[in-house]
């Protein structure tokens, strides 16, 4: 594992850039633990101050220090992405591994359902969900809902790896030695699909953060938990752009774009590393 990381860092520029970008964003999120203000307090500093030494990213019209507010927001946004990714990983793994292991009819049935979830336009459904929940909408509920809707693409990738494991010798040995399906999947197959799970996790985080930002900006989430989307929502509510408070929009957008590109580069470079063709070139002998 450590060796792989070092290899990737040394020889894969995309991975290195992605890691640096993500480290910046993560470091920024960690600063939130040192914030002098609680996240939801407003009018603690003078409003509408442009970036300066005292307020490196300026202040908002609601009298918040944008720098510290942003540390909380990016932390919550990332946490949201990770939560969705973790829950949907469970679904994707179970469905992908079972479909790949069983093959045949089970596989076909599961993949039909899977393709359905890939095709259905999720955004209107999430909007409908918000519409029904309104004030009861919370951060956790949205994460759960998105995890339930967003596992399908990755399940398909995991399944295609699992399908190739089915015919491998160790699977048969396992079956003959009386291992249960659960044992085989967890002990034998899981390690093989983990690389692809890692790379899809990055993409899934990107996907869920993107939707969360979008929903929040429209005000379709819990607007009292600061996230990047909520931050932009409030900026729009105060027509920050028209009022010339550009920093209120600029810094959140910049930070979240860094996160998107960082995560994406990590996913791409990991994919390239897992690719059997590039492996062939690597394996000595």
């Amino acid at each position: 594992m450590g060796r792989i990381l070092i290899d990737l860092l040394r020889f894969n520029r995309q991975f290195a850039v992605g890691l640096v970008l993500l480290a910046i964003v993560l470091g920024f999120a960690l600063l939130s633990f040192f914030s002098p203000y609680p996240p939801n307090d407003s009018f603690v500093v003078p409003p509408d101050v442009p970036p300066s030494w005292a307020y490196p990213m300026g202040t908002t019209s609601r009298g918040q220090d944008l720098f510290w507010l942003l540390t909380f927001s990016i932390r919550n946004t990332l946490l949201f992405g990770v939560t969705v990714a973790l829950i949907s990983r469970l679904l994707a793994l179970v469905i992908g591994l079972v479909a790949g292991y069983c093959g045949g009819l089970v596989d076909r049935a599961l993949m039909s359902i899977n393709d359905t979830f890939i095709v259905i336009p999720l955004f209107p459904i999430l909007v409908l969900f918000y519409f029904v929940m309104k004030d009861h909408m919370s951060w956790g509920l949205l994460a759960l809902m998105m995890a339930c809707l967003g596992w399908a693409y990755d399940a398909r990738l995991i399944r295609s790896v699992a399908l190739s494991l089915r015919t491998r010798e160790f699977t048969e040995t396992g079956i003959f030695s009386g291992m249960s399906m659960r044992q085989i999947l967890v002990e034998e197959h899981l390690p093989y699909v983990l690389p692809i799970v890692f790379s899809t996790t990055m993409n899934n985080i990107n996907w869920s953060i993107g939707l969360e930002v979008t929903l929040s900006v429209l005000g379709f989430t819990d607007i009292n938990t600061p996230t990047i989307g909520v931050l932009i929502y409030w900026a729009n509510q105060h027509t920050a752009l028209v009022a010339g408070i550009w920093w209120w929009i600029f810094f959140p957008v910049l930070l979240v774009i860094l996160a998107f590109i960082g995560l994406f580069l990590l996913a791409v470079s990991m994919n390239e590393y897992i690719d059997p063709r590039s492996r062939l070139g690597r394996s000595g002998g």
Partner: protein
Amino acid sequence: MSEPVLTVSGLRAWYRTSAYGVSREVRAVDDISLSIAAGEIYGLAGESSSGKTTLIKTIANAIQPPLEVLAGSVVFRFGDRPVDIHRISREALGKIRWKHLSYIMQGSMNVLNPVRRVRHTFFDFAFRHIGRPKPEFLQVVRDHLQRLHLAPDVLDAFPHQLSGGMRQRVTIALATVCRPEFIIADEPTTALDVVVQKGVLAMIHEIQRELGSSIIFVTHDMAVHANLTDRLGIMYAGRLVEEGRTADIFRAPRHPYTAHLIASLPRLGDTAPKKGLDGAPPNLADPPPGCRFHPRCPRASDICRREAPPMAELSPGHRAACFHPEPERPA
């Protein structure tokens, strides 16, 4: 004898890869020289991974990374001007291909474009050389197919609708429709069952006699070589280790590896079990020093471990690369 059609000298082609700091060089073709005369069928034999395909790909200038040509030349003589196939322009090469030099690929199962009808493939490959209007061109193709006992309606089929044997015969038809002087055939019969195989071999022979073409014919099936080829080259681990008239080689192989190949052929009335060759074929990324065969050779001595034996003419028209060749056997 007139000038040879093909002269290969000192050819060296390696696969070079590098990823994540690990570089690899597979020495698949190492210092090979040979020549082939007009109208000759030249067989190329050797175990799997010995570099047969790499050699003929290099001869046909089908070089794609990671394969690189490091040294040597491949000179064809079509008409009276010699051309070094690695040193001519793309356009010039395009004029030679299929008109003078065609190729039947190993694993011909997948050489036809899966999403187009066979007819289009004939147009792409042969139309510009035959130089007739479309209907006439199609008639030429149909006649040619008929001669190869293929129904002309294969032209309207997609590759997946043809059986393996049919696909193979279609590729042979494709490779011969322009009546080229030189045909390179890489295991054209290996994937086929025995009956179809016989038919295909007969077909190749017939066409060769009709066109008077030269053929390089690659297979590790020694029986096929015995029946089809005029001369035979034996490859081992990226090197040519023996070359001579097919009859001579079968009668009296000089290189210990060839001797083993011939000895292990099943013969009528054989009862004793065949002895296998000890050891594994060498890793071409890190070949043994000296003679590459020495770790498995019953006749190996000190010099074999240190120096690579050069190709030497042991009797007229019969060459081998060995310090301790098998004794000559009088005819």
